[in-house]
């Protein structure tokens, strides 16, 4: 027994060799949408937390994987205009997610009935573009 155990003394929160709790909160329930990113933006996605706080990146992911067409509280979610933002080939208009306090912007489309190679329908989100440059 350590000196503090059972003595009523305040125990230390320091626990060596124990992983810290992951910041950003737990993920939501099973994703409703499979989330894909354009291969040309894959590197940007993998390094997104260098430009955006982890909590914001996870919030984006949880939003698009659950309710991509709904407004997100406290987030500037709009549609791109012109040919870059038009709906086509069964996909939604292009949503534009601007991360507050950051230069990062993410554009995505979604589709509820995407038929894959196996012939079954999926709900898919495609991240079409990521920009992290300052405007």
């Amino acid at each position, binding site marked *: 027994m350590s000196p503090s155990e059972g003595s009523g003394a305040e125990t230390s929160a320091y626990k060596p060799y124990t992983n810290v709790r*992951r910041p950003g909160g737990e993920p939501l329930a099973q994703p409703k949408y499979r*989330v894909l990113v354009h291969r*040309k933006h894959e590197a940007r996605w993998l390094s997104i937390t260098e430009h955006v706080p982890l909590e914001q990146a*996870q919030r984006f992911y949880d939003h698009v994987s659950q309710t991509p067409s709904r407004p997100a509280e406290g987030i500037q979610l709009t549609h791109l205009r012109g*040919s870059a933002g038009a709906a086509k080939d069964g996909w939604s208009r292009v949503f534009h997610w601007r991360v507050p306090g950051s230069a990062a912007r993410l*554009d995505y489309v979604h589709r509820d009935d995407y038929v894959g190679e196996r012939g079954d329908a999926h709900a898919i989100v495609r991240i079409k573009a990521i920009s992290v440059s300052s405007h």
Partner: protein
Amino acid sequence: MGHATPTIFQSSDLNQRGRAVLDAAREGLVRVRDKDGVSLVMTREERLDEMERSRDVGSAIASATATFMLVEQAVEHRPKVKPAVAELGDWVWARHLPVGDLQELVAEMRDALYRACREFSVEPLQESLSAWRETAMMLRDPLAHETLLGEGDDDYVDAARPEVEAVAEPVVA
């Protein structure tokens, strides 16, 4: 806002009829003529705030209208040619938009200007301008330009939820 007819007082009224001056200012506009003829105006602070807001809205609408007229003229006269920067007024960012999108920009901004005038509000302008500006700034990024405007480009891979990297536990001998 209509133009209220101001009640006029002389500077000597401030001492002799101070209460009357204040009461008139509470009800509307008071003009006090100083001894040298300079005209001073007194009114409620919230009325001044409203006048300043109206001035700002009018200024924003006027500025947007001036730029709109420049861009509209350039797009309508040469619809297949990208306007020069000098023809874009305050909307310099529009140079990043495809030429084919400029007529849509003009159409939406015409509608936004009309609504802004009718409602005397900058919100319709801000909403449309912000969306078009964000679009243009995305297209300024060469990689985003390529994937947003590319045709039939279906090269997508799975995106995992961002997580912190796992912390390796030290090996205890």
